């Protein structure tokens, strides 16, 4: 009885989706040759697909409902298996060593093409970690993150082009300029509610891109800037292959630096203020935290990272144009943070590697890349808002065993 009701429900859902996707997915009009192409096969796919997926959807929803009950009573005793394995020193020490060795040996084991892809992935790791400060820790939705990335990239490209300044001189300058723009934008806007911030940062990202595209005298317009010099190493001249490997190691070092900084920030006074602010603004203000200044620090720090990565990006590709900095780029960095787990460093790294490397190695995927990102963002929010890797939150409990702190799931 119940099973048949489920079947009927799914049947109607599949009918609904077949109807819904009918004009866009089935009909394709060629307005020039005046022919209509009917793609009935797509309709069959949608019908079968939505019929099956509706079961999965309902099952996941009911599982989520069930999962909520124990969480509410506050007795989350069992940690997930992966977490328990990693807590064991006998396992995580060799694993970490193996990972470090693999990272170091990567350019020696694989071709420079692979190294290049890995460097790109590391760039996104850094961007993700930077955005993680803003979105994950402080809970501010920044949809124009790419604007600060563009500021960094263009400051290196332009200063290099006009004054011949080198990579190492500009790296901090790019970061500072990013922070400056972050403060300039954040100062008026951070007083507002979170969703306004989202739309203003989105607008700001577009403004920066449009200015770069239209102000030809300043930014060379849509054609971009080419022949940006690669980072130097005490004036040693390098071949293209060596330079690729050098940038890879540089990126690894910078990623480690970022991880170190973000990790330290998380447990600092300001980091705790961010997390508290994310959870409850009013309570936070009542505790005497300067809301605007705390938010501004998060925003500026996130922008600093984007600015620095922008410099590295320009130095790596040696060519930039405004088309590198579209909203889709911001959306991609955001989905890295969301997919990996907001506030979790390991999660963001994992998210970046998955989202950047999967489309590179599965070429068939790459056309559907943004489609899958969008889907992943919705599904993550609905079913697993904490991301792949759950951020462990410290919980202090009063109990019979006295003052002990133990990790519990957020």
């Amino acid at each position, binding site marked *: 009885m119940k099973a048949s009701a489920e079947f009927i429900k799914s049947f109607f859902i599949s009918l609904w989706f077949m109807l819904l996707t009918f004009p866009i997915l089935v009909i394709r009009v060629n307005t020039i040759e005046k022919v209509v192409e009917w793609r009935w096969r797509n309709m069959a796919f949608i019908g079968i697909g939505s019929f099956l997926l509706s079961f999965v959807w309902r099952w996941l929803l009911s599982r989520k409902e069930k999962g909520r009950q124990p969480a509410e009573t506050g007795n989350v005793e069992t940690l997930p298996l992966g977490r328990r394995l990693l807590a064991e020193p006998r396992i995580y020490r060799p694993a970490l060593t193996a990972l470090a060795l693999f990272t170091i040996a990567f350019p020696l084991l694989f071709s420079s093409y692979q190294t290049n892809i890995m460097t790109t992935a590391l760039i996104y790791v850094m961007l993700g970690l930077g955005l993680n400060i803003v979105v994950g820790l402080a809970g501010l939705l920044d949809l124009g993150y790419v604007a600060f990335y563009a500021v960094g990239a263009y400051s290196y490209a332009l200063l290099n082009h006009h004054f011949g300044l080198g990579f190492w001189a500009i790296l901090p300058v790019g970061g500072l300029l990013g922070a400056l723009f972050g403060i300039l934008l954040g100062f008026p806007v951070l007083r507002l509610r979170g969703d306004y911030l989202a739309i*203003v940062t989105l607008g700001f990202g577009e403004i920066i891109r449009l200015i770069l595209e239209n102000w030809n005298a300043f930014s060379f317009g849509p054609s971009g800037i080419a022949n940006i010099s690669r980072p130097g190493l005490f004036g040693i001249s390098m071949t293209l292959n060596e330079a690729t490997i050098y940038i890879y190691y540089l990126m690894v070092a910078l990623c480690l630096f970022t991880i170190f900084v973000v990790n330290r920030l998380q447990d600092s006074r300001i980091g705790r203020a961010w997390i508290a602010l994310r959870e409850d603004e009013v309570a936070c203000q009542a505790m005497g935290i300067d809301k605007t200044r705390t938010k501004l620090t998060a925003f500026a720090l996130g922008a600093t990272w984007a600015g620095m990565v922008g410099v590295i990006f320009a130095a790596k590709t040696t060519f930039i144009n405004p088309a590198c900095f579209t909203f889709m780029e911001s959306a991609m960095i955001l989905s890295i943070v969301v997919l990996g787990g907001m506030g979790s460093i390991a999660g963001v790294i994992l998210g970046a590697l998955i989202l950047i490397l999967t489309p590179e190695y599965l070429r068939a995927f790459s056309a559907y890349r943004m489609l899958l990102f969008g889907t992943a963002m*919705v599904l993550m929010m609905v079913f697993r808002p904490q991301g792949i890797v759950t951020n462990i939150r410290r919980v202090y409990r009063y109990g019979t065993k006295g003052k002990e702190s133990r990790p519990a799931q957020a």
Partner: protein
Amino acid sequence: MSSGPRFDMDYFLELAIGGLTRGSIYALIALGYTMVYGIIELINFAHGEIYMIGAFTALIVASVLTMNGMTGVSVLILASVVAVLYAAAYGFTVEKIAYKPLRQAPRLSPLISAIGMSIFLQNYVLIAQTSDFLPFPNLLPVLPFMEPYSHIMGSTELIIVLTTALATAALTFFIKFTKLGKAMRATAQDRHMAMLVGVNVNRVISNTFIVGSALAAIGGVLIASHIGRINFSIGFITGIKAFTAAVLGGIGSIPGAVLGGLVLGWTESFATGYVSSDYEDVFAFCLLVLILIFRPAGILGRSSVQKV
């Protein structure tokens, strides 16, 4: 371009009418944002995509009909009706999938889900249809009595402005006097209280999405006929601008959305006419940033005090 902007009356009127037309369409789309925000306090990022899907559906239906030998106003009416129905269906489905499971979630979650939905819908149309700009046939009829004024205001412009006025009037009537409209206002004021007095809140929210999406589809058909070409990404920028219009007028307020749309339309029209046409989109964003800084509640909005 070389002669610089003109400063005579005809040019001014042309820009004013252009701004009015543009603003009307922003207003139609802004209504959807403002209604949804009024009820569940969510920026529905996918709303711009609903408008784009409305325009695509109209294009597809109109093309199939004209290829089968249909002409005239009947094509316009059929295409519009199908576009409105489909946009409403998409709006309804998007709400059910991406927002309804997140009613109790923290504020950031539905917002991210909305962005995901927007990216998904854009790429869905991109993959299913094409990435090129498609020519959109001008479906709107040419009114002979507007002929003498066509250098200032063509019949397309007149139809757009009139349709917007009519749609807004109908919406105002609907919200003010029908039972569902009352339920919507009650839900917007206090969702829990509305639930207690027997309003089916989920149905009200669904209906809000349906009405808002239908209005967006009307806007989609009109703007596509006016500009004459569409592609999968038109919803993004127009969506942000319509949202700007909603914020400008005071989000949550229906006359505010219309007023905001018109102000934004005029700002863009005059700024591109007298200053520079390269930075068309920049003006809208600057206006948005300025309002949010100086008057975050908007022109007609009341500043709300956060309840604890």
